[in-house]
């Protein structure tokens, strides 16, 4: 399959393999290119490379580096990207995320796919 330039590239950083697989499938069905990473360090390394993701969907709790560190690295390399953080701790993480990155979107777990697609659509 040849990637079409019009399609968004979504980088999905999630260590729960089942949840990641399911979300990736839903996104692909809805016309996004999706790349899945399950480790914080790997994700930080990935955002600096091409092809540049248009959207970062990142879990907060990850092996080796937390979602905030990933989001920070992503913002440094991808100033225009949509950054969505998904977390089980919205009460704790929300304030810290928005202190660092006012544009970032925080979505609590369990993730409502409808909410996520609304944010993706708003970007397009």
């Amino acid at each position, binding site marked *: 399959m040849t990637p079409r330039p019009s399609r968004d590239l979504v980088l999905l950083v999630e260590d*729960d393999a089942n949840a990641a697989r399911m*979300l990736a499938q839903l996104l692909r069905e809805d016309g996004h290119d999706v790349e899945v990473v399950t480790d914080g360090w790997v994700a930080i390394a990935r955002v600096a490379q091409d092809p540049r993701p248009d959207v970062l969907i990142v879990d907060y709790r990850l092996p080796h580096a937390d979602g905030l560190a990933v989001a920070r690295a992503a913002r440094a390399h991808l100033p225009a990207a949509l950054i969505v953080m998904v977390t089980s701790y919205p009460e704790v993480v929300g304030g810290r995320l928005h202190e660092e990155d006012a544009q970032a979107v925080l979505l609590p777990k*369990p993730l409502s796919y409808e909410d996520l697609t609304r944010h993706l659509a708003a970007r397009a």
Partner: protein
Amino acid sequence: MTSAETLFDEMKRYVRWSEADPAALRALGVLARPHFRPIADRFYERIREHDDAHAVFRDDAQIERLKVALVRWMERLCTGPHDGSYFVERAKIGLVHVRIGLPQRYMFTAMSVLRLSLEGIADGHPGAPSMRLALGRILDLELAIMLETYRDDFIARLQRIERHEKQQLEQALARSEHRYVHAVELAGAMVVGLDADGQIVLFNREAERVTGRARDEAFGWSFVELFLPEEDRAAGHARLAAVAADPTAQQAWECEIVTRSGRRRSVALRLSHGAEDDVVVFAVGSDVTDERALQQRMMQTEKLAAIGTLAAGLAHEIRNPLNGALLHVTFLDRALARQGASRDALDAVNLVGDEIRRLSALVKDFLVFARPSTPTLAPLSLRTIAERIVGLLEADARAARASFVSDLGTASPIVDGDAAKLEQALLNLVKNALEAVAETPGGRVVVRLRRRPRHALLEVEDDGPGLTSTEAPIFDPFFSTKPQGTGLGLAIVHRIVTDHRGSIDVESAPGRTVFRISLPISNEDGS
């Protein structure tokens, strides 16, 4: 004055006053008259040799007047008539001496001076023996009259002293009684006295304040019957009877009483056997309702802190699997729809999705409720908060086909609060109200803000069906009458309000339910 005559006649009888005496005195008078003035001079010279006597005289003019008076006195002594008017006149003269404070002993000695002077004049005269006899009698009568005036004055003085002392004593008694009454009245403690039948015979101001009953409403009533809730009465009677029966009894009794308005208050009393005959049991104590509530709240807070820590950890463990589950349900829903699955199959999947969302809401509410976070208090305007929530929920109100009235009055009370938490509390109340009126179209929800002298009142009123029971523990965690409710909404409101040192109460009847939050006005509030 008949009594004066009688007394004088009696005195005259005693000294054997006879018809011959006035004549003898008249004869003496003839002889002595030229000597009256020199006698008076000598008389006052003699008196002034004595300091105590001298002290009663003011000046020479006064002494001159007294000398003239003494000459007149000797004249009357000799000429008479020695009748009732004589007695009255002599008594008056005596009284003058009493008034100026001449000591009694000088009356006697002075009289002796006069006697010797007059006797000396009679000496050698043929009528001297009868003159001396008459002189002796009349001068003794003079002394008797003088003494009588001293006595009268003395009695009058005694009576005055007695009267004064009695007044003093009565005043002292009244003062000490007043002090006791004051002490009992102003004591910050409830003081209740009961008689042998347990009836109230003493009821102080604090007791009135705590119970809401005036003393005349309480007097004569059985303490137990008037104040104790029915279920505690038997035990209450037994306890009071035990104290009444034992003169050494002393015991602590914490009981619940029902006030005039029907509220229950916790009261810690100390019961003791009364020493007074009409008060057999004294109950002294205080209203500990607020103290107990505070203790309970602290216990609750500690418990919640422990639960909160646990819950925060657990929340993550629950939300992660829920996340996976919900994504799978979303996928399943889409796949089934694509394959043209039955309505039932789609409904089943939707149901699972709803359950997952409900579980998620429960976790969220529980975290808010139990998370041990103290509010960060800063002066804020309740009006701003109310306006924000009204704005936020206008869409929900339209969805519930309810009219949404914002009645914020003119005041803008400032309270010390945590804006996010107070917004959450108000949000929960308004959401509940909107749910309550959603059943029937045309419902009405009012958000009302009022300022009281020291509190701000934030009310949410709806015209829905009302609570099933106002006795239900609606503020307790996990109490819910709604099928989809987590049972934490009102518990969260209660927690937030009490964390702000405020209170919340509810009035409910079909067609009108009002939740009322009362928050202390901030010291920063200058309005």
